[in-house]
């Protein structure tokens, strides 16, 4: 794990009981921070990443050398203004950017955990990040936010810690993973496990990589992050560096070439077993069930001010599912705002340059923050 030596890590000494029944302790949680924590410690925002994200939400990721996944939303002068707010972002438990995950070394065997790593849940992922808040001695966060799986973590966070954040902005997410989404995740997992190099999860011990399987998983998933219109507009039936069809199975079409490229760059930065574990955590996510089928109960004890955002062309976490959260909150008189942002860019809209989204997010954060300060909180 040498490549992770120079990144920030919190070694969590406490015991964390996981939903699967196992208890872990003495494990690393890798994180990054942006901006400065002020003296009142009232300007902290905990940002949660999505399935294939990591703690490097902004700037250049020191490991992959790529730009942060939330570069449009987060940074100096951006919607989540790091000149104003102190942003903490952790690599999730089960991840592959320095946090405790299936590619960590099992001290008992001296080899990577692989599929001996415990199956984790969104609840576990959120509970692990609670230690970061304690580490920074923050009594109450200003905001928790994230898109997709990051939004699920924001919901889970408020449910677990009802009064640990003034505001919450879950974006393009759901309170329970739909059959369609479980199905799509299963497709990805089966692609990985069907790769002979997967070796029942022990590929690293044998110096192999199930990169073909992981790449197919990414290609399939990538389609679900976009919209039909966006794909049609960007690629249509355009051919890839050729004048006519080649009557072969090469990448004749630009969309094929694009997806192959997305698949191949993904395997360089992401671990196949982490993909299995994190997609599983998403599939197991069902906040409704956890509260006896009544989502409202999850938020009953909270005074957190919510702002829920969805996107018109998102068919993975459609507005209808986001609205269910709004309805659950309204039915208990919670403080919840909601808007569906017009965008053709599909589920990925929250990661992209969508001005209406970014401006509304900025407005919500800044006015909410001013109000807190006016009240002297």
């Amino acid at each position, binding site marked *: 794990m040498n490549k992770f030596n120079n990144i920030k890590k919190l070694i969590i000494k406490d015991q964390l009981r996981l939903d699967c029944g196992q208890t872990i302790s003495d494990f690393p949680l890798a994180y990054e921070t942006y901006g400065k924590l002020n003296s009142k410690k009232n300007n902290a925002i905990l940002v949660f990443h999505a399935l294939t994200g990591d703690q490097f939400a902004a700037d250049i990721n020191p490991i992959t050398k790529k730009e942060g996944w939330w570069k449009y939303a987060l940074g100096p002068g951006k919607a989540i203004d790091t000149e104003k707010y102190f942003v903490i972002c952790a690599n999730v438990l089960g991840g592959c950017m320095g946090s405790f995950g299936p590619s960590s070394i099992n001290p008992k065997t001296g080899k990577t955990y692989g599929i001996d790593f415990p199956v984790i849940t969104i609840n576990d992922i959120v509970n692990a990040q609670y230690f970061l808040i304690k580490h920074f001695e923050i009594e109450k966060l200003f905001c928790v936010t994230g898109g997709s799986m990051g939004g699920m973590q924001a919901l889970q966070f408020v449910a677990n810690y009802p009064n640990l954040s003034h505001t919450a902005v879950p974006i393009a997410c759901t309170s329970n993973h739909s059959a369609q989404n479980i199905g799509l995740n299963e497709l990805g997992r089966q692609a990985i496990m069907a790769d002979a190099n997967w070796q029942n999860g022990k590929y690293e011990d044998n110096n192999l990589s199930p990169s073909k399987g992981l790449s197919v998983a990414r290609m399939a998933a990538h389609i679900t992050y976009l919209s039909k219109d966006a794909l049609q507009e960007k690629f249509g039936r355009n051919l890839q560096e050729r004048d006519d069809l080649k009557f072969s199975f090469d990448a004749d079409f630009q969309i094929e070439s694009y997806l192959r490229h997305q698949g191949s760059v993904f395997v360089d930065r992401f671990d196949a077993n982490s993909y299995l574990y994190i997609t599983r955590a998403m599939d197991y996510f069902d906040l409704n069930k956890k509260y006896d089928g009544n989502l409202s109960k999850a938020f009953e004890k909270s005074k957190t001010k919510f702002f829920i955002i969805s996107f018109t062309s998102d068919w993975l976490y459609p507005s209808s599912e986001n609205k269910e959260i709004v309805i659950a909150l309204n039915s208990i*008189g919670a403080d919840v705002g909601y808007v569906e942002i017009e965008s053709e860019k599909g589920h990925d809209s929250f990661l992209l340059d969508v001005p*209406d989204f970014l*401006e509304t997010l900025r407005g919500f954060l800044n006015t909410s923050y001013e109000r807190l300060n006016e009240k002297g909180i």
Partner: protein
Amino acid sequence: MKKEFKIISDLILKNSRVLDVGCGDGELMSFLFKNITQDIRGIEISKTNVQKCISKGLTVIEGNAENDLYQFPDASFDFVILGQTLQAFLSPEKVLDELLRVGKKAIVTIPNFGHWKVRLDLLFKGTMPVTASLPHHWHNTPNLHMCTIKDFFNFCDYKNIKFIKSLALNDEKLLNISKGNLSKRNLFSNIGIFLIEK
């Protein structure tokens, strides 16, 4: 600020719980937030307006009164406001019922189709009326169920809805409406403002 907003805000008790249905860009909500109560929510159909409201720090959800009020429990607000949009719904009766289910009291304002200018337009020009408070033409008006102050008054009577206050706004003048002066108010007022309860 519109005179109508000032009148509405005078009807609302300090620190009560308020829902503004069709809150637009949040002008009335902002005024109420500053002066009357911070416990205020809005519901608005236009995305652009919702974004404006959120940016102003107002708690607003995107939605419409006909389809989205069901998510609020019975009597969960002290006052529910519906400003000049009752006539634009497919079923004003359903909306009115919902307002009075969600709110202990409702404030409903209506543009008065019974105003003499409106009547003259139709009588002499023979065209659908276009006035300051009814600026649209027949082909682009959002209004589906135009009514007069008298119609609304009678309709509430028929539904056993109680009037706590009935006001008529005639340009700058604010007058009380009663059974006795209903015909006169109906002829000279631009807007009717009603504080009602079930």
